[in-house]
């Protein structure tokens, strides 16, 4: 599978591809609110697992699973590791010491370097939030035609120009991915050393300019192309894609669920500030336990 195929939105099983763009966007939106609201590592883990389950149900290809795994593991590991080392809040419990505070110059310079238990948990929470959204975002990206998302945004009366700009980013993902590889190859070829011919990381600082220049040109041509095909003029007359009732019901269900979760969390936070109501005690307990 090429870099271009990796990012194109033609993957996934039919049930997912046929979902209305509005359903997909609403699902991402409510899921994002849930991920922000929930602080409990276990619940976050369940939510994250749900996104992976959706990938299984969508029939994500093995190659894309590998890419997803690398991105998720790097994100989770990076978040947990950095927070474990640099967690600044209290209380914090050192699990083990990397550099003791009395270890010569390095010790006096750093004041000691420890791995904190609370840091690992905090890092895991942040990492799971990011990982869950990344997994869900990629699922939508890999299973959606840009036109589908464009129609969804237009159905919500977003300005056609703005909707087009938002969706163009997705349209260009496959091309951009392929072109990034091309630019790196080009930079390798411009290099005068044997190492430079095979290196990737050392060329990364230089990829922005050629890539940006190409993107601007491409975006201009694409805009001209869609304009001349009557995209902006006739957007109001467009046949709106049918939004099935069962999808609407699902979205309403998810909305109500999100509303309940957010309300519970707000009530709990208010109780912590002194606005406590006895009859809501079960909700407070439930929030502490799961959220």
């Amino acid at each position: 599978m090429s870099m271009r195929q990796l990012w194109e939105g033609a993957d996934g099983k039919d049930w997912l591809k046929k979902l209305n763009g509005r359903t997909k966007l609403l699902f991402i939106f409510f899921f994002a609110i849930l991920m922000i609201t929930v602080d409990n590592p276990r619940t976050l883990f369940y939510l994250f697992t749900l996104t992976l389950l959706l990938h299984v149900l969508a029939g994500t290809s093995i190659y894309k699973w590998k890419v997803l795994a690398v991105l998720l593991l790097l994100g989770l590991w990076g978040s947990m590791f950095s927070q474990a080392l640099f967690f600044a809040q209290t209380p914090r419990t050192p699990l083990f010491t990397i550099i003791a505070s009395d270890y010569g110059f390095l010790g006096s310079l750093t004041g000691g370097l420890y791995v904190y238990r609370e840091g690992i948990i905090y890092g895991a929470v942040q990492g799971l939030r990011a990982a869950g959204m990344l997994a869900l975002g990629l699922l939508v990206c890999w299973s959606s035609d840009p036109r589908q998302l464009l129609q969804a945004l237009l159905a919500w009366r977003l300005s056609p120009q703005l909707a087009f700009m938002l969706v163009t980013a997705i349209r260009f993902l496959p091309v951009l991915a392929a072109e990034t590889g091309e630019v790196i190859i080009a930079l390798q070829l411009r290099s005068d050393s044997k190492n430079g011919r095979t290196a990737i990381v050392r060329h990364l600082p230089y990829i922005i300019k050629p890539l940006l220049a190409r993107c601007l040109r491409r975006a201009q041509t694409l805009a001209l192309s869609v304009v001349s095909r009557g995209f902006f003029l006739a957007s109001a007359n467009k046949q709106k894609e049918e939004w099935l009732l069962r999808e609407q019901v699902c979205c309403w269900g998810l909305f109500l669920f999100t509303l309940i979760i957010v309300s519970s969390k707000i009530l709990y936070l208010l109780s912590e500030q002194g606005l406590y109501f006895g009859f809501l005690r079960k909700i407070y307990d439930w929030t502490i336990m799961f959220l």
Partner: protein
Amino acid sequence: MLEIKNLCYRYQSRNTFTLRNINLHLADGEMLLLAGRSGCGKSTLIKAISGLLGSDGFGEIKGQIFLNGEDVTHWAADQIGCLVGTVYQSPDDQLFAMTAADEVGFALENQGKAPEFIRQQVRETMALVGLAGFEDYSIHKLSGGQRQRLALASILITKPRLLILDEPVSQMNPQGVQSFLQLLVRLNKQEGIAILMIEHRVNELCKFFSRLAVMREGEIIYDGSMANAWYILTDKQDVGVREPQSIKLCRALALPRLTIDSIDVVGMIKEKCVLLSKIKKEHPAQQKKAPLLKVEHVSFTYPTNTKATLKDISFEVHPGEIVGLMGFNGAGKSTLMNLLGGLTSTENGKIFLDTLNIKEALGKIGYLRQEADLMLLADTVREELCWQNSVITADELKLLLKKLNLESYQEDFPLALSKGQRLRVVLGAMLAKKPALLLLDEPTTGQDEQSLSEIKQLLLDYKNAGGSVLICTHDVELAAEVTERVIVLRQGKVLIDQATNFVLSNEALLKAGGLTPSPLLPICSQLNIPPCVTVKEVQRYVHATAMGGR
């Protein structure tokens, strides 16, 4: 259909007018080829016709544009889009949807047509451009030529009466060009669609168009029949139009008429010139030096393929030699170039550069890939030539800038230069590193005649200084003029590795390698002289004794 009267346009950021006093008339069902150097205003003219300039209110527009008798000078692009369809150079940049059918149906969706009607129209339009059965294909799975046809279908579905094409074949191989042009001619004849096409490769397209317009510095300097164009352009060799070789021959022999008709050319030569059946060899065969590049029994299979892309390839390139690498798309040319450039590793076989394994000698190889723009990364031309370069001195840099004809642009931003200039900057950056071997992958794609001449001269200078070049190209004329030897690949194997004249004059070989024969070959055949592939070669057998009466 289209009438342009005294059109002038000035971009807001410029002091001078980019379009100056343009007058153009295109009748219903007419085909017009518009040519001119990069930056002469062709694309601006297309934008003006498509409604992208008159409605934005930023620049200054004078004059009028009429479509079907209506003044559309200040119409919005989407209104004009109902009458005029525009296809751009790169299909990748203009396709929006993910599947072919969605792409073709996009314009009708915007018009609010019923889904069943759209499906039917999509089927019909895709069949019209030869893409029936590809409806559910991802656009990325189509070949370059198929994507360009798809771009055309996405426009044709709105049934425009005027089709504007901005260099749509500049990235295609000769077969792709012929096939695409045949499709356009069919559309023109069957559907009566007027066609306005921009392209430098007039030499390849002249047989499809009866009318040519040429632009220079924002003005139309010629608008008339293709047959008469060559006379008018005689003293205007700086307009970037690539003439057919037969016209160049007529010019070189000072024949009374400039024509692409080989029978007419032969008649004039027989009447006006002296034919020599034998000639002295001008250059005695030079003793060959030890090879610089040695490729021995190289095979290569991509990890995802079961079939080998390269099979037992062996050849040599000597110092001071320019060798052409030619063949069908998919013959393995780019794979071979990537192996030589060190981007992939050989599976079987060995590649040596100056006795060193190729992997140890990568610093001595310059490799210019087809998308030269991607190699530009600095803020100025000067910086670009010196980037990661420890061998070039200030004097050498000055000389190189002069050779590249970029002295006055040395402080300019490279990506803002014209297409030809950008290519010369990248080529200059390669030459600045003084490589022993230069690998060029389709370096002349989309270049006008002047750019092409400048690039040819650079290569010949480099060769005369002892450099070696392996150039991958579909351009038979270019290969004939600069290479000494041609290697033709077919299905991953070397079909032939012989002197350029031998390969390019053998029509069976050319056909087998997917190459277009030079128009000089039938002329030589009818004159009973040995086959020649360049005008200079023909001139060795034909002397212009009588000056023509042009």
